[in-house]
């Protein structure tokens, strides 16, 4: 009975290889990914009156509040961009990132009942969360387009240009960063839960280090000393590129966008390694 090792379909061992990313397996479970996405969307507005309208209500109200507080009271300029457009674009992008991060950061904890019983590549769950969030984001983007068209029809000059075509790249970076940070946090909170409290708080503060409510130019004018901090933030390039492409204001540099992109790829890689590591034995510590 000579058992060559390749005869077995499945080998269960204490520790897998560190750099085995298991992505092939995730692909094998793509139907499950689809089901999870469907579930997230379907169950979102079951037994609600307004249903999918909720996707619009949140950004509209946030925009209105921002216009009063930051635009009105604090008087932060918006680079000449109409305030609703400026805030709405920031909110759509930022919310997608923060939703992805916060929702995926609970992956192990929220799914321990399922994870404790059946094996499937756990990465399916955070990926599905990121993708269903993307749908929400795209719906909100339609709202943005609506407001955009309104301003154009009113005769406001808005300088859309070819850089708007980078939109899919921006979305990828947002999704990738949200997912990567989320799964790293999720992997760490299985054992030490304190991190969970920190994350909600940190994400809130993080927004102020990202040009969401202010244009980068204003920050540069007032706090030149801290610009490195804003520049190091991989989200800065995303928001600035978006505003540059769609609204014609802000700044764009291939270097900072490339930095964000590289940052995302590396973080995703690290995150997947950590996540795969934890998924193998998290049931014992959660």
């Amino acid at each position, binding site marked *: 009975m000579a058992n060559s090792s390749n005869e077995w379909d499945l080998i269960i*061992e204490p520790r897998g290889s560190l750099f085995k990313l298991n992505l092939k397996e995730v692909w094998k479970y793509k139907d499950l990914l689809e089901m999870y996405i469907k579930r997230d969307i379907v169950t979102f507005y079951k037994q609600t009156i307004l249903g999918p309208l909720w996707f619009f209500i949140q950004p509209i109200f946030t925009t209105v509040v921002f216009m009063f507080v930051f635009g009105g009271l604090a008087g932060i300029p918006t680079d000449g961009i109409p305030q609703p457009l400026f805030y709405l674009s920031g909110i759509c992008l930022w919310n997608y990132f923060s939703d992805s991060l916060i929702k995926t950061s609970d992956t192990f904890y929220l799914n321990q009942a399922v994870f404790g019983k059946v094996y499937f590549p756990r990465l399916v769950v955070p990926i599905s969360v990121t993708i269903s969030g993307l749908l929400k984001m795209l719906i909100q983007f339609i709202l943005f387009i609506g407001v955009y068209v309104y301003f154009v029809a009113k005769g406001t000059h808005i300088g859309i240009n070819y850089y708007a075509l980078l939109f899919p790249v921006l979305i990828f970076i947002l999704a990738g960063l949200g997912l990567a940070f989320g799964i790293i946090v999720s992997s760490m909170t299985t054992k030490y839960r304190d991190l969970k409290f920190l994350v909600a708080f940190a994400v809130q503060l993080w927004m102020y280090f990202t040009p969401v409510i202010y244009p980068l130019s204003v920050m540069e004018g007032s706090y030149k000393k801290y610009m490195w901090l804003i520049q190091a933030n991989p989200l800065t390039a995303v928001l600035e590129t978006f505003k540059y492409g769609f609204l014609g204001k802000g700044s764009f540099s291939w270097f900072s966008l490339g930095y964000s992109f590289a940052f995302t790829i590396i973080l995703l890689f690290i995150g997947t390694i950590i996540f795969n590591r934890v998924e193998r034995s998290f049931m014992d510590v959660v």
Partner: protein
Amino acid sequence: MSDIAIKFENVSKQYRLGSIGTGTLSHDLNRWWIMNVQGKPDPYLKIGQVNDRENKSTSEYVWALNDINFEVKQGEVLGIIGKNGAGKSTLLKILSRVTTPSTGKITAKGRIASLLEVGTGFHPEMTGRENIFMNGSIMGMTKTEIKSKLDEIVDFAGVEKYLDTPVKRYSSGMTVRLGFAIAAHLEPEILVVDEVLAVGDAEFQKKAIGRMQHVSQTQGRTVLFVSHNMQAITNLCSRVVLLNRGGVAMDSDPVNVIRNYLMFESLKEGSITWNEETALGDSIIKLLSIKLQGEDNFVRSHFFSNSIIRVQLEFMIEKLDDDLVVGFDILDENNSIILRTYHNDGHPENWPKLKLGFNKIACDLPAGFFNSGTYYISPKFSLHFKKWIINSDPLLSFEVEINHGVSPFWNRISKSNRPGSSAMILPWKVNDNEE
């Protein structure tokens, strides 16, 4: 290709006892340092000890599984039995990749699907149909596979009317049936089942067992079945592995293993003893021990109903009194008394003579008396019509597995077709002594 479906090689699993959160960061750092920087094996693996629920552990680490080695052949239905905490569930969890072994290796051929708990991932807000797809894909089926099996699944579960109703409106029985139906139609090469038969009504259990038999016999699939239900194990399995304290204690045919399990697994139980200080009683009589024995004089708490159950009492009489009465009650699971018996119930000639000092007397509960079930013994000592000396709550329990009867009708008398605590076979005859 060899016909081995699963192979366990030196599989061990260690758990840390107590709280995980506090004080472990230092262990983690220490472990990390020793393993990754010094390149030595995990230091905490060494101080683990055998998992034994009866003795409080002295170590912080415990071996839930300890060096498991066995192979399962293709198409075999393997039963896994053992006391609670013997490592059964841990073994299945490792096999279904919910957790990893601490050491060792498992190799397997084909897709493994586990029924550790049916209905995993059901979302209460989604309809039965949506949940079939959800649950099926969690179990590793593709959408096309599920579609082609949808009718069969719905039919098996008997939920066609409620297919588009949210699962939260289902009864618990329906949910379980639906869950099992999905799992039963998975068609994995290896099916892992843990105690699912504990749920559902009798008809459904029958269906479930039938399905498992069907899967293994006609499709040559391998089944691993963990259960406390010896009847189901005997009916289904071709081979049984007995786990004890995380190790394989026995590995043989079902009848052999189950007999041994019931006999030796509980050797330590089936008795209760007191020392001079803690003994029940008063200045007249002190109860020192109660022991339950089978025909072979082994002390135990599991019996087959075709064996007598000998209840042996040891006590110390410090003042002989003619009114002294020694006996016990047998109670059922509902705490109602089935019978009470005293040493002086019979003709005075047959009474065991009580003497000053140490006494050891016994009462044989006849073979063929009990139905399957758990029974309790509570000692009753008194001075006749004067006072209770010991009138305690149940102190000792024993279990009976029904195994008697020669009738072709009832050779499988069981709790499900025979109600009541006693399953005694009584003589029947044509009554021709008419007046």
